[in-house]
C-alpha cells in the first residue's frame, strides 16, 4: 500500500491503484510530449487555424491573438514548449503536480477555444462525435485527478528531488 501525505493530504492506495495512476500519468505525458514535438518539427504549424475557428464567449480574445503577429508567435512558442515540458514532467514524474495543473489549464483553453456546444459548427474535420464532452475535457479531468493524486514522489523523479512521501499509518489516517 502506497501512502502519501503532503500538505495535510493523505493518500493510501494499493499497488494496482498506484500502477493505474502512474500509467495514466505516463500516457497523458506521452500524448502531450508528442503533440509538442510534432508541432516543433513541422515548420508549417501554427495555432492560427485553430484560433481562427474559435467559437463562444472567448472567441474575440482568441482571434485577436491571430491578428497580432507577435502575440501569435508567443502563443505558438508557449504551446510547443508548454506541451513538451508538461509531457516530459508527467512521463518522468518531475514536478508532477504543477505539470498536471498546467496541462489541465492548457486543455481548458483548447476546450474553450473550440467548445463542442450545441449550435457550434467547425470546419475542421474531427475524428469523433461530441456533445459538450470531448476528448479535451476528458483528458483535462484526468489531469485534475493526477493533480489531486500526485504519484511523482512515489514513482518518479520527484522522489529523488523532494524525497518519498512520509508514511502515514492508516489507523490514524
Amino acid at each position: 500500500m502506497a501512502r502519501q501525505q503532503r500538505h495535510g493530504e493523505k493518500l493510501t492506495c494499493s499497488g494496482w491503484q498506484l500502477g493505474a495512476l502512474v500509467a495514466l500519468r505516463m500516457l497523458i505525458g506521452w500524448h502531450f510530449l508528442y503533440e509538442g514535438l510534432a508541432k516543433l518539427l513541422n515548420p508549417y504549424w501554427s495555432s492560427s487555424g485553430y484560433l481562427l475557428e474559435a467559437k463562444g464567449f472567448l472567441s474575440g480574445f482568441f482571434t485577436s491573438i491571430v491578428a497580432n503577429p507577435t502575440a501569435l508567435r508567443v502563443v505558438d512558442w508557449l504551446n510547443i514548449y508548454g506541451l513538451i515540458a508538461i509531457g516530459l514532467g508527467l512521463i518522468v514524474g518531475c514536478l508532477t503536480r504543477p505539470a498536471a495543473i498546467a496541462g489541465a489549464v492548457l486543455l481548458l483553453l483548447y476546450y474553450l477555444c473550440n467548445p463542442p456546444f450545441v449550435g457550434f459548427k467547425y470546419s475542421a474535420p474531427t475524428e469523433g462525435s461530441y456533445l459538450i464532452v470531448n476528448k479535451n475535457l476528458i483528458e483535462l479531468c484526468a489531469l485534475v485527478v493526477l493533480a489531486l493524486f500526485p504519484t511523482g514522489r512515489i514513482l518518479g523523479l520527484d522522489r529523488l528531488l523532494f524525497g518519498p512521501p512520509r508514511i502515514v499509518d492508516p489507523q490514524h489516517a
Partner: protein
Amino acid sequence: MPEKNVRKGEPQEQQPQAGRGIGRREVLKGLASVPVLGLFVYGLLKKRSLDESRRAQILSELGLGEAPAVLPKTTGKKAGELIRLGIIGFGGRGEDLIRAAGFAHPDWVEQKRRDAERNKLDKWLEDWLKQEDLNLALTAVCDVFDVRAERGLAASKNEVRPGGAGAPLAGAKRYRHYQELLASKDVDAVIIATPDHWHAQMAIDAAQAGKHVYLEKCMTRTEEEVYRLHEAVTRSGIVFQLGHQNRQQATHAKAREIVQKGILGPITLVETTTNRNSPGGAWVYDIHKDGSPQTIDWEQFQGPAPHKVPFSLERFFRWRCWFDYGTGLSGDLLSHEYDAVNQILDLGIPHSAVASGGIYFYKDGRDVPDVFHVVFEYPERNLTLIYSATLASNRNRGKVFMGHDAAMEVGGVLTVTADYESTRFKKKIEEGIIDPSLPLFTYHPGAKGIDAVTSASEQYFASRGLLYTYREGKRVDVSHLHIKEWLDCIRNGGQPSCNIERGFEEAITCHMATKSYLEGRKVFWDPVKRRIV
C-alpha cells in the same frame, strides 16, 4: 477527497533510511518511468526516419526542389526615375489599379481604417501602407463621369500612401477627353481601365503617342481590333502589359514548373470555371445617384460602340451586360481563366472552339449570356480545354489539370494528387510510398516551400487559406506586382509577362468563344491566314 480513497492493504512504503542518503531502491523508484521516455524517443526517431525517407523519395521522384516558385523577374533595385502616370477610366477597376500603384481615395483609407478598428483581422490598410513605393506620380486622370474624375484627382493628392511623406505626390490634372491626356507632356505611361469597347482604340492611340500602356482585359472587344492593336504596339516599341494579374500568382508559377517536369504525365483535359451568385458578380452594379446627362459625357462613352442608343444609366454603369461594350463572361472571366492556363501550359490559340449557354437567370434586358460554356480543342497538344460558368450558383469548382499520372488543382493553393492508375507512380504506389487517396503534395505560397504530404486537417485549413493568410500579417496585392513588373520593364527594358503576344492569344481565344456562341457553330483558327474562320 483522498480520504475516500483509503483502501485497506499491506503497506508497501518503507520509511527512508533516515540520514543515510538515497539508497539504490530509492533511485530505482525515482527513475522508474524514465525507460518510458527511452521508448518514446525510439518511437519518435523511427517515425521521423520513415516520414523523412518517404518525403525524400517523393520529392526525388518528382524532381522538385523545396524552393519557392520562380516568379516573373523583378529588378529588386530602387524604383529608378520617376514615372508620370495617367489613368483613363477611373471606375471600380481603375480605382483598384491606381490604389495598387500607390494612390488611394481618402474615403477608402477612412473605410479601411474603420474596418480595421472593428475587426482586428482586417489588415487591408496596414498591408497597403507597407506596399513598396513604385516612385510614381499620378499626373493625369480622364473619366467621362465627373464624380469618378474627381475621385481620381482626390486620390492623386492623398498624402496617406505607401512610402509616406517621401513618396512623390504631384497631384493630377483632369482631362475631359482621353486624346488630350495622351497629348500631354506630363504623362509617360497610361493605365487604361475603360469598358472593353474603348480598349483597342485608346491603346493604339497611346502607342502612337509613345506612351507605355497597361491595358485591362479583355484586350479588345472585337477580332478585327486585335490585329490593329497588335500591329500598333509592335511597331511603336512601347512597353505593353495586359491586366492579367494572375501572372504574378506564385501557385501559377509553381504549376508551370510542375507541368514542365512532367509530373502530371500527358494532360488531356483542363477544366476551368467561374461560378458567381450575386448581382454584383453578374455585373448588376450600383447606379450612382449623381449619374445624369449633365455629369456623364454620353457621346464619348459610346464612342466605338456598334449601336448608338439614347442616354442610359443602366448601360453606363452596367455596361458588361451588353455586347455593344464588352463580351460578357467571355471577355470578363474566361479571359482570366484562359490566361492562367496559357501561363501554365503555353497553349496558344486553340484549333477550334464550340460555345453554348444562354440568358437563364438574369432576364433583365441584357444580351450577354449568364450561363456560358466553351470547349477548346488543341489536337496538336492532344488536349481539350473546357470553360464552364454560371452567374447563379456559388458552387465552387476548381481549375483542374487532368494528367495520366496525376491531377493538379490550382488556386490560392496548389494540390497535386497521384492517379491510382498512373504508370509513372505505379511502383511507388505499390510500395505504399505514394497514397493516391491523399495529395502527393501541396504548395502554399505563404509558407516556406513545398509541404509534402500533410495531414487531412492541415490540408483543409490550407485550402481555405487559413494557415498562411495571416501568418506574418503580410499579403501582397497581385495587381501591385503586375503594375510593378510593367514599370520595371519601362525603366530597365525587357518584356512583361503578359505582353502583346500573350494578349493576342487571349483576345483571339475569347473572340473564338464569342463568335461560336453568337453564330451557333464551331469556329476554327486559321494559323496561315491568322483569322478566325
